[in-house]
């Protein structure tokens, strides 16, 4: 029997939703399932109503599901807010003692009371263990093998000592047993562990970008904390000492990008992490990297703007901004990962492209990708190549005269580092001559600006074509970019199973666009529908300006939430496309 089971855990900030969802996710991951974990939280430390969702499937999933199969309610609002999402027969697990009042009747759903707090106190002596009781009760209701949960709890708490580990396991086991003894049919929904044949890991987009940066040779990270990008900075900081990486919390984003550029000029592979608002402050320094031809990687995790907007929610609203930011014209590259697997490899690629073309490269993610946990195959390190594109001291010793901005056929000037030889390295934010000194003459301006833009010709050849998926002979083609890959792919799969002819073309390397390749892929497709997590169709506009391909139909979402396959299919119905 195929499994696609969605557990929602609701409660206030600070109640430990992420502790429960993380333990559940790993419990099922280690039993061979694909797991997808997403979070909805408000920008606050305590209170409010937040929720996490753990979706378990034997299919590869990269997205949320609309309907809920099991609701764990840690507060009354969890029931009120999510009642309409429940399937018929859905069980709501709750501790009746800790819920003020229940306003919804148990018509098509049923309540299952588990005294989390009382069990925690009885078994392990403190209410702090009630989340482990709840986690155990959920695993029990699914009649899943307890040992997987015990192993996860052991690893989660082993740094805190054997007593804490045992208290958590005991509490979870008591919850597990309570559920099995008291639920009418013992099992609410049977989920059986599968053989663990593949090496899968459960990572967020932020963590995957952190792993990609470490693997890709990152040496210097400067950033000012900003949701939803901070997780990447934190992950790298946690592992910085092992790999001689310096992580600097800058006084502001202006300093952050200037520092990354200074570090890169001196020879370190450098990056910043930020969101749209922080990047707005970096706009001038972006141009500095452009004119001084200094490699730098900018990870921008988008959230809805303008200004502070919705700090903890998602949107693809900054694409046109990153492509057009900063005064003047200079080459840049924008990569938009589809999921954490893609994020890992694209991060490595971002560093290599930045180094080769001596340009700023963006990794454009969003809160959905940054904070959700995806099940992905363990990353393959054999294909990781750290390319520096820097002249060695030996090579420099053989050069008689060095010019940092030597005019070349490709536009790329051989790069030397200051202090690595007798040759001096001069860089200037003013228009400069080949040596890097100020030169305001008209002839020089034309020469230098053309040289920088010439790099675009090589750069565009580095861009991979978009991913094509689904039926060759289709009536409808979805066109998306970045993190919407998961929900769009699931929509294609679902519709295909129902007999519709649909496919998708998905862009993860979005700028510059290779015009001929893209045109040849899209020109013969029937009914293109753009799917974007923004209000104005920013990629649709980019596609038109770069290739002349016009997409007139679109499904846009800008309420701060990510797409699901159900949303997309629902919209198609509304549009009378299916």
């Amino acid at each position: 029997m195929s499994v696609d089971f969605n557990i929602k855990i609701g409660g206030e900030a600070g109640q430990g939703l992420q502790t429960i969802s993380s333990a559940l996710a790993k419990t099922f991951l280690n039993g061979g399932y694909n797991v997808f974990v997403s979070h909805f939280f408000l920008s606050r430390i305590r209170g409010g109503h937040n929720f996490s969702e753990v979706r378990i499937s034997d299919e590869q999933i990269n997205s949320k599901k609309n309907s809920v199969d099991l609701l764990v309610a840690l507060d009354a609002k969890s029931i009120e807010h999510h009642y309409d999402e429940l399937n018929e027969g859905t069980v709501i697990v709750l501790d009746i003692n800790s819920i003020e009042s229940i306003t919804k009747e148990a018509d098509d759903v049923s309540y299952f009371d588990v005294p989390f707090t009382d069990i925690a106190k009885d078994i392990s002596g403190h209410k702090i263990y009630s989340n482990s009781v709840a986690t155990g009760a959920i695993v029990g209701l699914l009649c899943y093998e307890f040992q997987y949960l015990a192993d996860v709890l052991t690893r989660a708490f082993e740094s805190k000592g054997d007593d804490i580990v045992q208290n958590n396991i005991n509490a979870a086991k008591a919850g597990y047993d309570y559920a099995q003894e008291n639920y009418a049919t013992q099992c609410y929904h049977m989920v059986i562990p599968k053989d663990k044949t593949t090496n899968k890991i459960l990572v967020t987009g932020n963590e995957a970008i952190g792993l990609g940066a470490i693997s890709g040779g990152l040496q210097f990270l400067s950033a000012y904390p900003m949701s939803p990008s901070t997780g990447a900075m934190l992950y790298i900081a946690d592992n910085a000492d092992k790999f001689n990486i310096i992580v600097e919390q800058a006084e502001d984003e202006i300093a952050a990008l200037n520092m990354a550029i200074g570090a890169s000029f001196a020879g370190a592979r450098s990056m910043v992490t930020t969101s749209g608002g922080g990047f707005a402050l970096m706009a001038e320094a972006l141009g500095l990297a452009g004119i001084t031809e200094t490699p730098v990687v900018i990870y921008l995790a988008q959230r809805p703007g303008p200004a502070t907007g919705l700090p903890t929610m998602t949107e693809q609203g900054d694409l046109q901004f990153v492509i057009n930011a900063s005064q003047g014209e200079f080459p840049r590259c924008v990569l938009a990962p589809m999921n954490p697997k893609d994020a890992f490899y694209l991060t490595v690629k971002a560093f290599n492209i930045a180094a080769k073309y001596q340009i700023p490269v963006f990794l454009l993610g969003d809160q959905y990708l940054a904070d959700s946990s995806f099940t992905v195959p363990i990353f393959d390190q054999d294909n990781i190549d750290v390319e520096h594109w820097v002249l060695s001291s030996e090579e420099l010793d053989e050069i008689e005269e060095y010019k940092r901005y030597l005019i070349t056929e490709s536009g790329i000037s051989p790069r030397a580092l200051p202090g690595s030889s007798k040759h001096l390295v001069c860089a200037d934010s003013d228009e400069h001559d080949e040596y890097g000194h100020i030169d305001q003459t008209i002839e020089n301006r034309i020469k230098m600006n053309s040289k920088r833009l010439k790099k675009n010709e090589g750069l565009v050849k580095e861009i991979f074509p978009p991913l094509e998926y689904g039926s060759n002979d289709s009536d409808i083609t979805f066109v998306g970019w970045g993190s919407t890959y998961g929900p769009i792919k699931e929509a294609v799969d679902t519709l295909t199973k129902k007999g519709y002819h649909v496919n998708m073309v998905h862009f993860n390397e979005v700028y510059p666009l290779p015009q001929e390749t893209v045109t040849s892929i899209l020109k013969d497709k029937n009914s293109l529908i753009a799917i974007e997590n923004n209000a104005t169709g920013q990629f649709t506009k980019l596609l038109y300006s770069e290739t002349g391909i016009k997409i007139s139909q679109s499904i846009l979402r800008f309420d701060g939430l990510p797409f699901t396959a159900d949303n997309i299919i629902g919209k198609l119905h509304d549009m009378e496309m299916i």
Partner: protein
Amino acid sequence: MSKHIQPQLFDTNQEIEWCPGCGNFNILKALKRAFTELEKKPEELLLCSGIGQAAKLPHYINSNIYNGLHGRALPIATAAKIVNSELTVIAIGGDGDMYGEGGNHFIHTIRRNPNITMIAHDNQIYGLTKGQASPTSNFGMITKLQKHGVINRPFNPLSVAIGLNCSFVSRGFAGNIEQLTSILKKAILHKGFALVDILQPCVTFNKLNTYKWYQERVYNLDDEGHDPHDQQEAFRKSLEFGDKIPTGIFYENKENYLNTYEQNVGVDDQALTKKSDDSRDITALMLEFT
């Protein structure tokens, strides 16, 4: 002076874009002398600057240079130093560049304490934009923009730096090359963040703070037996700016806790680029995600 290295080693063929008589010429001269006397080689130097007339100085010294954005010399210099601690890194700019546009970096670079030298050509006026008030302009000074006189109180870089327990705080005067050279040498040799604020007459736009105006007021703290390790006394001296203006080394922090930024992150002994290698195995990290 060294037999092997001559001051002309630091000359460049760049056309100097300063007004005749500008205080910047003497600062340039003093800096070249300091490098010569310290036996520095051009390739060991990295001169970082922002934008303004002062910020053009790196082009006039034969060295590695990074002439970046207005106000942002310090973040560039700090990061370059931490990546390659073997470089002698100097950040150069005017008062508008360093204390106005870059004011936030000035504060936080002092807190970070990288082993770099910051040179502020402090002429109390904006030159490149032709004569508006700067953060250090005297209260009441009339400019073509501040027609009723400057109404903001002047920024006092020295008292801010001393208040932040800055590692090394000094003031030179462009009219005294000998003293300025000596201050610059001490600042460069000092291990930690060293501030050298330099009184620099602007002959074109500042008709108030002229050579004569400064000459009548400046005196050398050394002549008074000032103790640069006394923070409170240094602070008191930093407030003196009127009929008498002290110059010299105000404050030198000798406290043990004040390690440099490079020491604090463990790259003091060797350049980061030489430490880091490319063969990074992340297998153990990935297994944490099961």
